């Protein structure tokens, strides 16, 4: 293994030296007039996107509206990753004994203090996650962050009172259903736009269904899309944990 390490070191030093040399051509850190910062596109987003969408958080506006196509397929990537993990490790057919003694499954006494605290804390986390999803237009947050927080609240249940307890609340089938539902909500919004005669994910036309003006339709459909993202992310985060912590058996766990 020694020559391999030497070759790696050589590669890294050469590549790093070249990249360090190339940094002299980059614009200064924090330069407001660098090509990326002074481009017409970013100036447009900063100056005009609030008038067009009524959303003060520019990141949400660009994420869910202008770059909605990109975000939709990122959601699909997450969905596919969850399915891939399930198909690599899932099945629950593996017969080799558990790494830890089976006692951890049922008999091990769970700690009362942590369970009670988590019962206290999990609803607060979930409410805060819903707040993050719904308030993403005005503050940092949105579907991805809220979804991860919702997923981690289920992970917290699985960590304290055991994976079976968490699977009772969010079974594998339900998680996959919710993940698919999230993608369906996102793509369905786009398809409704198409059905009304505009391009895919061009929310402005949705005011015919929701009432109000085109601007309000964009504002509202961003929330719908974020909810779809949150469903997918929540379900997939929980599936990843549930599969990895139980080697795909969906029982036992940490």
């Amino acid at each position, binding site marked *: 293994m020694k020559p391999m390490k030497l070759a790696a070191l050589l590669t890294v030093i050469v590549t790093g030296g070249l990249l360090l040399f190339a940094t002299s051509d980059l614009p200064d850190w924090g330069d407001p007039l660098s090509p990326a910062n002074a481009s017409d596109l970013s100036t447009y987003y900063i100056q005009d996107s609030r008038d067009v969408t009524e959303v003060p958080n520019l990141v949400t506006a660009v994420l869910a509206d202008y770059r909605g196509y990109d975000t939709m397929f990122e959601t699909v990537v997450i969905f596919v990753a969850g399915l891939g993990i399930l198909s690599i490790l899932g099945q629950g057919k593996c017969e080799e004994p558990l790494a830890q003694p089976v006692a951890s499954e049922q008999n091990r006494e769970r700690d009362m203090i942590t369970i009670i605290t988590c019962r206290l804390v999990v609803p607060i986390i979930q409410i805060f996650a819903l707040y993050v999803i719904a308030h993403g237009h005005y503050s940092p947050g949105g579907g991805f*962050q809220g979804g991860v*927080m919702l997923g981690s609240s289920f992970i917290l249940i699985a960590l304290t009172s055991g994976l079976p307890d968490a699977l009772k609340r969010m079974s594998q089938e339900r998680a996959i259903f919710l993940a698919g539902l999230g993608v369906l909500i996102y793509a369905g919004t786009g398809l409704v736009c198409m059905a009304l005669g505009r391009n895919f994910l061009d929310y402005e036309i949705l005011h015919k269904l929701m009432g109000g003006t085109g601007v309000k339709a964009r504002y509202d459909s961003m929330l719908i899309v974020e909810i779809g993202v949150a469903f997918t992310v929540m379900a997939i985060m929980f599936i990843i944990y549930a599969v990895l912590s139980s080697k795909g058996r969906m029982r036992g766990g940490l």
Partner: protein
Amino acid sequence: MIWSFDIIVLIFLVIAAVIALSVRDLLASSMVLGIYSFLICILWAEMGAVDVAFTEAAVGAGVSTVIMIATVFQTTRKSKD
């Protein structure tokens, strides 16, 4: 942006990365990777990317570390390098 704060956090970042790769216990390695994620989260908050920092705080310190530890628990804790 506060450049002095930035430089300090960046130096800590390199230290955390080196420790995460050089420690032989994989559990400790995952924990240090969680610290690394949190330092990056601080860095992004300082750079004005609040949404990215929020995501990293939820993902890096929450989910990423947990699934890493779950894998280490299910496989093996020892590492030869």
